[in-house]
């Protein structure tokens, strides 16, 4: 007798969904048995990244890692390109005033500082992050590399999550700000220029709900 209907067995999901936000459960079920790491917008919106951080608890899982949208890095890239070209023109003007060996030193120094400028901007991009775990929300801000500010709050302390998106560029590339208001005298947390702020806010909201339901 021919087979009329063949039931496909549904893939078993081993992911612990105890703290997985509802908005992410769909993503984690696709084709993988483990928590699938998703990196979007040049690692600016990472779901379940392999990143760990200082002071992470044993059972704490990083759910979301946020950085500024790559499009916000365009201004310093343009200025770096402009600074790269400048010595070509300046050397023509200065060659009457300096010896060749002095000119070589000046140009070498110029490019050394340009290299440092690019390196510092890359470091700023990589290490100014927002981390959302199953327990808390952490905002790490570096100012000029040397000054660090870390704000964190647990999900139960969050009062309100607001997203702000506006303007032509922000609407076009879908990035904006998230403001997280915390209870009492705790410092409010803000993630600036992050991609898909609405989705990130929904994940935070889901986590808040999961924590409140657990209570």
């Amino acid at each position: 007798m021919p087979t009329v209907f063949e039931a496909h067995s549904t893939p078993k999901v081993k992911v612990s969904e105890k703290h997985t936000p509802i908005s992410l459960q769909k993503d984690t079920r696709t084709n993988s048995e483990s928590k699938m790491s998703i990196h979007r917008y040049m690692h600016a919106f990472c779901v379940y990244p392999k990143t760990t951080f200082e002071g992470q608890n044993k059972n704490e899982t990083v759910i979301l890692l946020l950085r500024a949208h790559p499009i916000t890095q365009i201004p310093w890239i343009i200025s770096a390109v402009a600074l790269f070209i400048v010595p070509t023109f300046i050397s023509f003007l200065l060659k009457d005033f300096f010896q060749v060996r002095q000119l070589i030193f000046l140009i070498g120094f110029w490019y050394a500082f340009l290299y440092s400028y690019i390196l510092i901007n890359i470091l700023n991009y990589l290490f100014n992050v927002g981390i959302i775990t199953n327990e808390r929300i952490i905002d790490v801000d570096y100012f000029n590399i040397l000054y660090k500010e870390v704000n964190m709050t647990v999900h139960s302390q969050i009062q309100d999550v607001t997203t702000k998106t506006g303007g032509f560029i922000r609407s076009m590339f879908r990035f904006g700000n998230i403001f997280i208001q915390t209870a009492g005298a705790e410092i409010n947390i803000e993630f600036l220029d992050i991609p898909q702020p609405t989705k990130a806010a929904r994940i935070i909201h889901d986590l808040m709900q999961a924590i409140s339901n657990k209570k």
Partner: protein
Amino acid sequence: MLQDFNFPALSAIIIKIGGIGASIFYILFSIVILKQIQTMKKVIQIMDRNVLLTLGTVQLFVASILLAYSLLIL
């Protein structure tokens, strides 16, 4: 008296001293950045395959070349 004064030689000495000073400053700056990269990588462990540390070391290497150049050639 001013006619006997060798202005190009004086300006060369000033440029050499300035170059050495700037190179020393740049070496110190590179060391600080390298140390800071190590600290940052402890705060957030990102999977960069040590590229950032290599970039920091390259910066220090460039700074050493500039200091050597300013001492020996400039």
